[in-house]
């Protein structure tokens, strides 16, 4: 089918680009008609990205599999509602964020494990240190103001531009940059109070 062959990935098509508009219209039509081939192709394109978003939002302490599967399932059941007003990636990211928010609430429903690493594997080397550092960052992130946390995750970890992050969060790019500035300030303050960090020269 031509829609699946011509041009850039389906999930990157944007109604803002004139060259993409015709394909977006065809994509909307095929998804509304529940075209299985297009449905599967879209999900296949999205699955690595959804996985990355889920890992970015949840952090290394939570197994991302269930949330990834639930997000893909919800995206699959919502594709017929896609109207082409944004890219499919943005459409899917919004759904993923809602799934992740519920997953985080479930993860917080038990007593927090405190400001220290879980008893874990003793992986030697760089990867173990990297993982521990990431876990430490997320422990601080999970205690931050939610909007600032989201700004930091989107821009610093998921490497979105402030404009893309603003679109996802439903705010303006300048408000997003402001949130980011406050987020970094809050995190620096938390690190200053973290007894694990002695001063480094």
């Amino acid at each position, binding site marked *: 089918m031509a829609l699946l062959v011509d041009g850039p990935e389906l999930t990157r098509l944007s109604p803002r680009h004139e060259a993409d508009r015709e394909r977006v219209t065809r994509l909307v039509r095929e998804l509304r008609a*529940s075209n299985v081939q297009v*449905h*599967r192709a879209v999900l*296949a394109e999205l*699955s*690595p990205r*959804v996985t*990355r978003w889920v*890992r*970015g939002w949840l952090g*290394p*302490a*939570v*197994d*991302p*599999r269930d949330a*990834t*599967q*639930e997000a*893909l*399932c919800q*995206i*699959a*059941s*919502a594709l*017929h509602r896609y109207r082409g007003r944004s890219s499919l990636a943005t459409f899917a990211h919004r759904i993923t964020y809602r799934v992740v928010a519920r*997953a985080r609430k*479930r*993860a917080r*429903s*038990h*007593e927090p*494990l*405190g400001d*220290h690493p*879980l*008893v*874990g*594997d*003793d992986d030697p080397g760089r990867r173990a*240190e*990297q*993982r521990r*550092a*990431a876990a*430490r*960052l997320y422990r601080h992130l999970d205690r931050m103001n939610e909007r600032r946390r989201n700004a930091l995750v989107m821009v610093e*970890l998921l*490497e979105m531009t402030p404009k893309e992050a603003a679109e996802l969060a439903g705010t303006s790019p300048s408000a997003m940059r402001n949130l980011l500035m406050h987020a*970094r300030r809050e*995190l*620096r303050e938390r*690190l*200053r*109070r973290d*007894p694990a*960090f*002695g*001063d*480094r020269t």
Partner: protein
Amino acid sequence: MTRDPQSRDLDALLDAARAELREPPDFDPTALVPAASLAGRARHRRRTAGRLAAAAALAGGALAAVAVLAIRPSPAPPAVVAERGRAAPVANPSPSVLDEPAGVPSPSRAGEPPEATSRTTFRTRMVDGRHVLVVAPGAGLAIEDASVGARVRLHRGAALFDVRPLDRGERFEVVTPHGTVRVLGTVFAVASSAGGLSVRVFEGRVAVERAGGRTTLRAGQALGEGHGGIEALEPFGRRAAATRRRGRPASAAPRADTGGTSAAAEPTLADARGWIASGEPARALEEARARADGASGTRWRGVAADALRALGRHREAAAAFDALARDAGDADRARFGFLAAELRLRRLADPSGARVSLHLAGVTSPSSPLRERGLALELEALDALNDHAAFEARAAEYLDAFARGSRRAWVRSRRAAHRAARERADRATAHPPRALPRPR
């Protein structure tokens, strides 16, 4: 311009987290696509069916039924059904045969999931407009209209059944060459192969009748050797079971029970830690205790201690961490000791016990990787005990070793307070109140 240390720390942490995200996940995301596509579209169809039914009811018309997918009738081979020792040849079952098209890969060996390729399909079917079947690739089954409900004949392969609660007198049966499964409203998977019958229950109860007798399986139980189709159907089953329980987590992995062994994979340490993180510490504790004497026993004991902590059983958790510190190697001893001490001080209001945990594990020794945190924790304990002399000694050690440590301001402030209190106590000792003069 020199950047402040916290900015450098923050950048280092962000770099580590970004690098961690760039590492590939420990599962294949594309393998989730076929199941998600089927489940998502089935969900959409059910919602549509619900809305149509509501609209029809509002309009006062007949109920709308949802036709699910195109059916390709093809002749089915006669099936011999063994049921309670009786063998009854069945010829030409009803035309609702749902054989998978040729060329779709089937599970090649028991226990291996079907290969996830773009041609792998999981089909969803409705039975009686209420019950949902998810048919694994390579399965062959037929749906019959029985006088007392629905009957599905599973010739080969595996399928998942999400059966709505049945009316009084109604039955739902899955008939295989090796036995019959009867249900009362449940979620379960059945696989039939040359090797026999496998059943796994995710929610509710089923009765399995074979030549050897009848077995009742409850949620979490399984029967028979593992089958690749069943493993592949596990996500559907867990999700359906969780939905039935209104959002509570899906049921535990099935375990071996009467009449057979389950080939379900053993949970890993990562699974158990994930249960703690997702609000199922009791499940993690049960698994950890069962595995504490086997391979990786120390790590499982660590998971058990973490699970106890998450359950709020702080005293037991502290004791578990202390025991781990005693048994652990150098690399872990300080960490377990610190965890025990932290629980004793902050949760059990036992500063003396906390100090004992720290010292027994050598947390504050010069070679300890957690020396700064250990000293800071011990100072909190000494502060709570109001032990001025010991606080002074430890504070001096902390400030000497960690002159720019992050707790320095607190340590200096409390040291000053303890000095002042000690001076007052010394003055009271050196100059006791004079005895009153005797009246002349």
